[in-house]
């Protein structure tokens, strides 16, 4: 197993180096398929092998010493890279963050007190396996999609310099970093991988090298570095107060002793770091800015995997947050973000922006679950991670494909997509339904979360969910409604086979995940919860889950039947009602000047209510307030 994990982490990095050298498009495509298959295969193998044993595994990589040193060196390399890039872009101030944290961590490592408790550096449990599978399958799917997408992208955006070699290279590097992140138990290692993902994200956001992209990429960088600083500080505290940098040990201690002896401080700091990574308010800005990046990177980094690193970490430390101030900070930040982001999403008409807000919002929900830190919420959080990763990745890809075909990712331009691009529309509709409709996975998870919050009990979270669900419903529904409706048939679909392959693979994955929800619950999530909490109950009773599964089938079967019925009914076409001024084709009416005027039907965006101009700042300040107040309490309480 140790070796396998090593390969899992190293192989992508090697592949990244190779990809950086390939400039031929065809070769790159073939290599991507090949490497992708290898990575996915490795991920699945790891998962299967681990499952055969089915127990928590702590281990060290072979030659841990070398790894330790390598990471130490690489940390400095990373720091230098950041300094170089930020100085080059005249944003040198950012490098201060990098210098401070790197020096802090490495300084402690090199010159700090000897660690009292040294444990294994690696750990594998159910959660790691879930993450590995997500990265390995969803992530690789996105990689395959990227081959076709980037080709189309450069056809459309001729102004952007073709740096695909760089793009794919970073992508593979990112896989490796992610695998490392989710298997590390040593905080210093985790910190290192964490920084690598930040830099990957930063590089990919700046892919187009436009001014906007550069600005946004640096925004992402400094926010993520702030998170990195959080981890660095957490490490520092752990070093000095606990004498260990073993994540699990820290969590265990903290969950046992609560806020005594400042044990909660590292937990709170880790939580803080996770908030930045998961783009919770006030750190949501970077994720929104990241939408300038080509869609595969949005799908991979900014929805399916990297941002999940934040919530992953939170779920890891959740048990230590149950019922204390650190937990309050996290769940308030999460709940607040869940609500605010879903409200803000209403005012967006850019498809990717909506997805971004929705991602932030859903991450907020997971964060909230983790912050509460009970069995049920962790159950819910695990499912939210799974469903969100699959669905969102699929939707990002779909919006990207739509953009490549229609030249726009504006929701208004998706009018009648069901007629124009039936295949893409199907994916999109499945995704939207998956995001909020009963009885799809996200909703079940949300339901579980709701129930868990009621039991917690946490009135404020219940209210956040109750109101946030309502707003969530609004923005999804209006998007959904847009896709149906009339449109011109037979528009040219330039989506490539590999893109469809990935999207349909996701769709199938989603359906499998939904229908096998009970199995996943019993085989994966419940054991995990049991491992952490000592016992497990699924948040939703089994009978309900089964009803849901039946409903899922119903939701496909019933419309199929009714579709047949509806088709067979005799009818006569009639003009749509336009007050008697219809010119006959349902698209034009007689206007005030007596001429035909084209009808326009647009969605609502409620700018005066929920516009970014109105709510973004308050949301930021709200987030800042929550974090400052509770961090203050945690730290103040310890002193």
């Amino acid at each position, binding site marked *: 197993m140790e070796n396998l994990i090593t390969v899992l982490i190293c192989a992508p990095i090697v592949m990244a180096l190779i990809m950086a050298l390939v400039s031929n498009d065809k070769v790159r495509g073939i290599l991507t398929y090949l490497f992708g298959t290898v990575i996915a295969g490795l991920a699945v193998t790891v998962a299967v092998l681990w499952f055969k044993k089915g127990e928590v595994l702590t281990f060290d990589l072979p030659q841990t010493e070398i790894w330790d040193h390598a990471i130490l060196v690489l940390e400095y390399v990373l720091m230098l890279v950041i300094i170089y890039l930020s100085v080059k872009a005249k944003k040198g101030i950012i490098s201060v963050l990098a210098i401070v944290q790197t020096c802090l961590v490495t300084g402690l490592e090199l010159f700090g007190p000897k660690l009292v408790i040294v444990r294994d550096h690696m750990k594998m449990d159910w959660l790691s396996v879930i993450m590995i599978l997500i990265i390995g399958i969803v992530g690789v799917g996105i990689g395959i999609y990227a081959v076709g997408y980037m080709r189309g992208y450069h056809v459309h955006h001729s102004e952007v310099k073709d740096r695909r070699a760089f793009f794919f290279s970073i992508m593979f590097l990112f896989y490796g970093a992610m695998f490392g992140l989710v298997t590390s138990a040593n905080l210093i290692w985790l910190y290192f991988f964490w920084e690598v993902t930040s830099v990957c994200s930063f590089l990919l956001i700046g892919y187009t090298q436009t001014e906007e992209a550069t600005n946004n990429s640096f925004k992402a960088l400094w926010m993520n570095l702030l998170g990195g600083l959080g981890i660095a500080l957490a490490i520092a505290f752990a070093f000095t107060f606990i004498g260990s940098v073993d994540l699990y040990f820290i969590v265990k201690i903290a969950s046992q002793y609560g806020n005594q002896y400042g044990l909660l401080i590292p937990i709170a700091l880790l939580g803080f770091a996770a908030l930045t990574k998961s783009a919770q308010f006030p750190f949501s800005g970077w994720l929104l800015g990241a939408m300038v990046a080509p869609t595969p990177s949005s799908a991979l980094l900014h929805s399916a995997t990297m941002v999940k690193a934040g919530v992953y970490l939170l779920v890891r430390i959740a048990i230590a947050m149950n019922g204390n101030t650190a937990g309050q900070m996290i769940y308030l930040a999460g709940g607040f973000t869940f609500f605010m982001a879903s409200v803000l999403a209403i005012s967006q008409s850019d498809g990717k922006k909506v997805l971004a807000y929705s991602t932030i919002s859903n991450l907020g929900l997971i964060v909230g679950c983790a912050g509460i830190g009970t069995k049920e919420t962790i159950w819910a959080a695990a499912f939210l991670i799974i469903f969100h990763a699959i669905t969102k990745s699929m939707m990002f890809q779909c919006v990207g494909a739509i953009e490549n075909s229609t030249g726009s990712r504006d929701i208004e331009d998706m009018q009648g997509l069901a007629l124009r691009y039936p295949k893409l529309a199907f994916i999109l509709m499945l995704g939207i339904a998956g995001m909020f409709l009963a009885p799809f996975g996200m909703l079940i998870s949300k339901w579980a979360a709701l129930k868990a919050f009621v039991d917690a009990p946490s009135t404020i979270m219940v209210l956040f969910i109750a109101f946030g669900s309502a707003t969530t419903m609004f923005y999804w529904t209006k998007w959904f409604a847009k896709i149906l409706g009339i449109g011109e048939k037979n528009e040219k679909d330039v989506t490539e086979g590999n893109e469809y392959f990935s999207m349909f693979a996701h769709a199938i994955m989603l359906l499998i995940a939904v229908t096998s929800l009970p199995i996943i619950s019993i085989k994966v999530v419940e054991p995990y919860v049991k491992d952490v909490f000592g016992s497990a109950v699924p948040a939703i009773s089994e009978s309900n889950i089964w009803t849901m599964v039946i409903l899922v089938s119903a939701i496909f079967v019933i419309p199929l039947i009714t579709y047949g019925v509806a*088709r067979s009914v*005799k009818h*006569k*076409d*009639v*003009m749509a*009602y336009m007050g*008697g001024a219809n010119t*006959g084709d349902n698209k034009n009416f007689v206007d005030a000047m007596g001429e035909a005027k084209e009808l326009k039907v647009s969605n609502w965006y409620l700018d005066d209510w929920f516009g970014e101009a109105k709510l973004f700042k308050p949301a930021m300040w709200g987030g800042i307030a929550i974090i400052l107040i509770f961090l203050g309490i945690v730290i103040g309480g310890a002193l």
Partner: protein
Amino acid sequence: MNSIHKSPWLLHYDGSSCNGCDIEVLACTTPVYDVERFGVVNTGNPMHADIFLVTGGINTQNAEVVKQIYNQMPNPKVVLAIGTCACTGGVFKECYNIQGGVDTVIPVDIYVPGCAARPESIIDGVVKAVALFKEKSKDGDFVEVDEVPGDEEAETEETVAAVETEGGEE
């Protein structure tokens, strides 16, 4: 099979009436006359209507509108011309912008004279119209599309056919 006589929903369109007949039609729905006693609902939407009440004569602009609304009403349907203007053009028939009564554009089933037509007359007219449904629905399968009945002058038929939407049943 015929159930419309118990629930005739009506649509009122003001052609170029002077409002006199108009407000009398509205008055029919108000407490003193209350046509809802007979199940009449003033729908305001051609797609839901069974009876088409037109007040006022036909002029250049509203001819198209009247035809369109007529075509948007599902079968079976009847048309009532309310008021002298709608019957014949009335006092305005010599005006340059009045083509004449409603029957110059769509087939009219019942004429309700009066200037203004009294609510009582309108009620009588509606009652007569409802009786017509019995015959109308007997005319075979009304799910079938039928063109505007050709009991008018050829010229009318042409213009009406011109605004018919294309495409028959599916």
